[in-house]
């Protein structure tokens, strides 16, 4: 227990230590102060042929266009991989619905995997298709956050910056160098990086076994760094080649959260008020620590029905790698669901009911506990606007954030996003049940089956991509519906927040007075956290009661399904 907490503390410390300078660096990158790759940048921007400042609509249009083209390319590669090189295993092209699902999944930074990587995709698909989008979808999200920060801080401006430029800078100065360094580290730590398909191994019993190989290290680096999560292997980072040892595990966990955490600091610098960034860091941190505590407690306490035949001190080890143990699996589970990453090093389906619920809630809150690269921050800002609106009223002023009045238009757009998770999770889940597709895809009956269903749709809507397992998602129905959920969960937030930024940009910030309540103090942070929790609870408590909570209380009564 003590060493567990020590490890968690060490992780938090390392994360913070890495995030602060990275936040500073990213702010420098996006304000154009870092130029060591200027020639490359010029070359790329010349190709894009577009340097002008963009209003929010143009910015959003560029982003949509870019993602649409990315989708078309990826979709084609996946459909046609059997006609392309670098396919040593000779895999066939994907079905239309799997290709659709996978393409959406990767352009939306979800990396939901309806397929098993090593048994479905060619090296070309993995490297040219998926890894490309791992960079670009993350860079798109970061660009959104930067544009939003500019809009929030602007003073009677019409422009939010240039999407192409932001995206290029994010890729060139942040993701690429980061991924290269991390990949080299991973390589040094024993992760494979090869274009050969597999090796033959002889097991201790003398049996022959084929071990899949491929360009693993490079893909794992960006899957973690870009809050992507799509693994090279089906079991993701539980696979010994994808996560060979304790150090790769620790580095992976750091990489999962470092950019989202750093973005809070970047934000503070971009808007010229570091306290605001720290406040968001703190609010997200409180939620993260709470999630860790809850999940850790659930797993440490374990399954009471197992008490008779397993060591209760070991906690719940089902579905966990022995080499990682409870605390590293829990830390990972929390980090990956908080950060909209989705890679796993343990099977979430085997978490205790309440432990699994924590992972679900992390995603259902809208992926704002640091969240995805860039988009986690902007998701949080939507909650900030709603909180400011309520809190601002209570101090007797028209609510304002960063000195900008929050009026009908902003409230309308922010309130609209409250509908994203109920539609993506509750409505689509209900349709799956009503049409009978849920029943045929789940592995377990009863409340755990419901958890499996809810988890999948929460993961897709939250653009998380982690799987609960135990759910057969690779069907035309679920591939399509999950594709919809992912699009909704991505653009259902991005477009409104860009519109809000566009609207706030035009306003004149008012100087703070004693009458404006500070959005960086403990009162506001508490309020923000409570707003997030209450909105989340009010939306999901009924279904959680029927899923994980019902399973938990039944477990306590000795009832299984």
């Amino acid at each position, binding site marked *: 227990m003590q060493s567990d907490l020590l490890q968690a503390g060490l992780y938090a410390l390392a994360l913070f230590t890495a995030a602060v300078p990275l936040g500073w660096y990213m702010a420098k990158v996006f304000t154009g102060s870092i130029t060591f790759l200027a020639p490359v940048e010029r070359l790329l921007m010349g190709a894009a042929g577009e340097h002008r400042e963009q209003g929010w609509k143009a910015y959003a249009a560029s982003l949509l266009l870019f993602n649409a083209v990315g989708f078309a390319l990826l979709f084609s590669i996946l459909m046609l991989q059997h006609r392309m090189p670098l396919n040593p295993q000779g895999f066939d092209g994907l079905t239309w619905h799997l290709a659709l699902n996978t393409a959406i999944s990767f352009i939306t930074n979800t990396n939901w995997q309806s397929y098993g990587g090593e048994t479905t995709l060619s090296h070309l698909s993995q490297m040219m298709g998926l890894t490309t989008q791992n960079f670009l979808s993350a860079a798109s999200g970061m660009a959104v956050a930067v544009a939003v920060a500019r809009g929030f801080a602007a003073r009677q401006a019409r422009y939010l910056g240039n999407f192409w430029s932001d995206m290029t800078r994010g890729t060139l100065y942040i993701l690429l160098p980061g991924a290269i360094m991390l990949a080299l580290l991973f390589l040094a730590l024993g992760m494979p990086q090869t274009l050969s398909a597999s090796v033959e191994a002889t097991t201790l019993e003398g049996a022959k076994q084929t071990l899949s190989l491929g360009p693993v290290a490079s893909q794992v680096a960006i899957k973690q760094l870009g809050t992507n999560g799509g693994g090279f292997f089906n079991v993701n980072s539980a696979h010994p080649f994808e996560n060979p040892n304790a150090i790769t595990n620790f580095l992976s966990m750091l990489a999962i959260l470092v950019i989202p955490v750093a973005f809070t600091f970047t934000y503070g610098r971009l808007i010229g008020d570091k306290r605001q960034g720290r406040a968001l860091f703190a609010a997200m941190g409180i939620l993260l620590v709470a999630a860790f505590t809850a999940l850790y407690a659930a797993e440490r306490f374990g399954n009471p029905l197992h008490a008779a035949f397993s060591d209760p001190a070991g906690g719940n080890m089902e579905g966990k790698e022995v080499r990682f143990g409870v605390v590293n699996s829990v830390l990972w589970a929390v980090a990956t669901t908080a950060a909209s990453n989705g890679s796993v090093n343990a099977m979430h389906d085997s978490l205790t009911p309440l432990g699994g619920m924590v992972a679900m809630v992390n995603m259902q809150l809208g992926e704002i506990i640091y969240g995805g690269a860039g988009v986690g921050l902007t998701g949080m800002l939507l909650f900030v606007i709603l909180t400011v*609106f309520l809190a601002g009223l209570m101090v007797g002023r028209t609510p304002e954030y960063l000195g900008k009045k929050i009026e009908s238009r902003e409230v*309308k757009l922010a309130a609209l996003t409250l509908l994203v998770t109920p539609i993506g999770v509750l409505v689509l889940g209900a349709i799956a049940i009503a049409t009978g597709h849920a029943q045929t895809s789940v592995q377990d009956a009863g409340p755990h089956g419901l958890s499996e269903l809810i988890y999948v749709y929460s993961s897709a809507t939250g653009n998380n991509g982690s799987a609960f397992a135990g759910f057969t998602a690779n069907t035309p129905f679920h591939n399509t519906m999950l594709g919809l959920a992912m699009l909704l969960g991505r653009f259902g937030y991005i477009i409104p927040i860009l519109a809000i930024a566009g609207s706030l940009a035009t306003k004149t910030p008012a100087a703070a007075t004693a*009458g404006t309540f500070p959005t960086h103090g403990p009162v506001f942070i508490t309020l923000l956290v409570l707003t997030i929790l209450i909105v989340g609870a*009010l939306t999901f*408590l009924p279904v959680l009661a029927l899923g994980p909570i*019902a399973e938990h209380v*039944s477990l306590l009564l000795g009832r299984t399904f």
Partner: protein
Amino acid sequence: MSKHVSAEIGLFEPAILKTAVKQAVLKLNPKGLARNPVIFSTALVSVLATILTIREGVTGGATFWIGLQITLWLWFTVLFANFAEAVAEGRGKARADTFRATRSKGHARVLLDPANRNLWEHEEVDLLEPGEVILVEAGELIPTDGEVIEGVASVNESAITGESAPVIREAGGDRSSVTGGTSLVSDWLVIRVTARSGETFLDRMIAMVEGAKRQKTPNEIALDILLAALTLVFLLVVVTLPFYASWSGTSIPVIYLIALFVTLIPTTIGGLLSAIGIAGMDRLVKANVIAKSGRAVEAAGDIDVLLLDKTGTITFGNRMADAFEPVEGVSERELAEAAWLTSLADETPEGKSIVELAVKKFGFATPENREKLTFVPFTAQTRMSGVDLPDGRRIRKGASDAIRELVGGVHNERLEAIVRRIASAGGTPLVVAQGGTVLGVVYLKDIVKPGIRERFAELRRMGIRTVMITGDNPLTAASIAAEAGVDDFLAEATPEKKLELIRKEQAEGKLVAMCGDGSNDAPALAQADVGVAMNTGTPAAKEAGNLIDLDSDPTKLIEIVLVGKQLLISRGALTTFSIANDVAKYFAILPALFIAAYPGLGVLNLMGLASPESAILSAIIFNALVIIALIPIALKGVRYQPASASSLLARNMLIYGLGGLVVPFVGIKAIDLIVNALRLA
């Protein structure tokens, strides 16, 4: 601080409540309900519940009895919300009626030729058109708003302002505006009509308090959108629930789903929102302020900078005698005695202060021949007052130019120097003359109003910066500013400088409020975010401002700010309360719905409610009753004490946020006990 037109209207005035009950039913009209998305949704599902209950009754279904009760309480929820609005409107109407009583009917004398007061014809008041010129004589009501174009008269404006002392209204200058419903005490006035009957200030005030012309304010619209979005979220939650229940092998009666839906959507704030708005207007009217739009009231709550005229606001318009400054050849005592004599019968504060100062300095005793003194009162024409002594001496005091005229325009270098010095120090020189000789000058000094300093400190705590506007030179302005405790001042202010200052503040993103009365204030009033025009002001000023203070009291701005803030706080607090309530309602209803499927979920029944039926019924009853319980808060407004935003937020969060979490746990439990004692479920 303000003089109230009508008496305080009690919160539970029986007459108002009686009408409100009737109104609550009439307001079920779908057209009216549709204005309020939350209550409209409630009404819609109430209709659905009614149909379901009737069907249950016909088919003898098992949930008939409980369904019937739920349906009734659903309708009560709608009715209670209507009732809240009706009470607020009723209180407004009651106030409006007192105004309406003063509205003049009958005929007005319309001059056929504005230059000839003897050529007129009767015309019905209701038919008066702007631009027509009417004659009003002593003892008559002024039929409508207008501008005096000829004559000087004293007007009793108590109908509007509650102030019984008549005020002077005259052509030209800043006192030319008259209000319909006021009456002439003396003389006559020729008035050019500026407002059609039904569009006068009085009418606007009536419409405003009755809520008839009430438009949703920007912030109210924003809040409405948020509430509508929450309603949609809960609709999705409830509509999808049967599918998840079916997965769990249980089914939920539709009537229970309806109950869950209505308890979750923010009916509390939805039901009280318009009442809060109307009550805010009502409070403003009670303070004798007419808002031309609700927007202005809301903006008042946001004010960052308050521009206040020095005279009459920060200092007494009436100045106090500070020194006697004789001209050459006159002793201070001589001057003091003369000034003292002229002021013996002078009841103005200035006059009294002269007597006080003279007695203090030279100990004059009341003369025995006082009754033989003939006092000459101050008039607007002569602009001086004085006394005629039995020995024929005629002593006068007055403005320097008036006295100069009196003494025949004799230039007195020494006098001019004194007058200039006093004026430049921010004081008012009052020249005293005996016969044709000037004796000297009484130095009248600005005195800062007691308590104003504290008021400014209060404003500072609210984050509002006060700027004093004065025509004084910077030196004087600085000394008075320091004495009054304002944050800043604008000296030697001209209308242009005022306008420039407002623009500068606004460019920094600040909201500026100011008050003014003169025509030259009009541009600044129009430019300011909140412009309070004095009712005594010119029509141009009143047109430019977005609020009109009937008492013409410039410090009223402070009260207006408070009303605006209270309005927003009430909305925010009740919204928070409403949403926080949902947590307890979930804990009441969810175990009730799911316990059949998973008996273990009984642990969520934190309140230990007796049965699923009673739990649901108790939650819906609580949900309806809380609207009634909160009507007084909606009408009176959440208590507001100037404090920093952080402490206000913490306080209100504690009361309405935490309170909103805890109260329903207690309330629902209590109702559950009663429901079970009465065997209702």
